[in-house]
């Protein structure tokens, strides 16, 4: 398999094929990050596309220093942050809050029917984390990055990353316990 660096060189000289190979190589990593960050399949798909467009537009500026994967992930981190600052998100967030009650009801039914109940629960818990905590949790747990690398990517101090991780982890723990607790209460009620 060709290295990222040689693919980038080929892209710089206009190779469509090298672009295709590079995108396919990193697509899952970026999509997984984006999906876990925004929690919505279609939105994650659109954001992933935008991230790769950003990547290709700025590929001429890629110096080759550091891992390409981290450079790409940094674009993804920044792009997701931009999304959370965008009007589109604020509008969607407003609508979501209004519909929260209805959605919750529907979600409960879906959750009960889903074979991947556990996945849905963890997803729901992660979705409830504040964006900056969610970011470090995903980068640490799912992308397997070191604290130092997360600090570089998110442009904060290592201490801040650790603190966010701690807060995120505690919140996740309580959220997941809460879900379990709710579920057992619901189950008990149904049994009665």
């Amino acid at each position, binding site marked *: 398999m060709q290295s990222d660096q040689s693919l980038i060189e080929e892209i710089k000289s206009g190779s469509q*094929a090298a672009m*295709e190979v590079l995108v396919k190589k990193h697509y899952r990593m970026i999509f997984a990050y984006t999906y876990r960050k925004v929690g919505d399949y279609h939105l994650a798909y659109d954001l992933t596309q935008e991230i790769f467009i950003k990547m290709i537009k700025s590929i001429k500026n890629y110096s080759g220093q550091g891992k390409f994967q981290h450079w790409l992930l940094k674009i993804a981190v920044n792009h997701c942050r931009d999304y959370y600052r965008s009007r589109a998100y604020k509008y969607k967030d407003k609508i979501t809050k209004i519909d929260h009650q209805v959605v919750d009801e529907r979600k409960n039914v879906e959750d009960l029917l889903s074979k991947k109940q*556990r996945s849905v629960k*963890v997803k729901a818990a992660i979705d409830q984390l504040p964006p900056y905590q969610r970011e470090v949790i995903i980068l640490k747990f799912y992308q397997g990055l070191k*604290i*130092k690398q997360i600090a570089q990517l998110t442009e904060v101090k290592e201490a801040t990353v650790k603190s966010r991780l701690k807060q995120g982890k505690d919140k996740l723990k309580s959220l997941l316990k809460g879900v379990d607790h709710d579920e057992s209460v619901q189950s008990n009620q149904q049994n009665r």
Partner: protein
Amino acid sequence: MSRFNPINKTDNDELEERFDYNEYQALEQELTDYLVKFPDEDDINATIDTMRQYVPAQTTKSANGIERLITLCKGSATEVTIVSKIYWITCTMLFIIGYLITHQANANPLLTLIFLAPLPFVIGLLEVFKGREHGLLEIELTCKFTTDQIMLSRLFLIGITNVTLNTVLTLTISPVTGKPILEILLTWLTPFTFFIAIALWLSIKFKGQVFVTTFLSLWLVFIGLTISNNHWIEALLNINIVIHLICLGFGSLLISFQVKQLINKYQTYEGGQRVEINY
């Protein structure tokens, strides 16, 4: 990445005293349940298609002649295994037939050489275009080279094969004819270049069967006309060396023009961008 990245104890060291390792493991276990449904291949390809417009414009590689020749040789070496065995067997058969005829007392070795000289190349052209004939150009595109690169590599391969076989045959008949090797080489090389140029032109214009039939008809007409007229034979075998060189130059120009035409045609082949899957 759907795969979860587990944290080992060493990784956890960097988290210092803020985190309890066992606690982390428990959380990890919970987080592994978060599955990601990835887009299917069509959706990923749609993203790639959207991105195509943002790929920097193709720059012409400023490779020098030697680099280009090396690339061409490498491409041709790859093609050796792809070109069908029937082609290699036919070439060997033609060589043996040529050798046997040229070494018979009643046959004119030079004329035989002139007549047989372009045949390996013409048969080889069928190999060059076999992807087109079988509608397999799209599949051929799935290797690391473009269509024109594949064709050029095959042309180079069959050209080299043809010239090598003819040269070996020339060396074997040189003692029989008593003529200098250079003169024999020029005698077959000049008509050879014209035949190759015509064959290339026909192969670009027509598909396999039509091209072969047309070329063979022309070839037979040429042989018929030549052997039916002693003056023509004399003229063909005793052309002045200067005229030979001029004709050879002109024939070579025609070949390069046709090769350029072929490259232009298949460079713009629909979807003929570089498509590589063999990484």
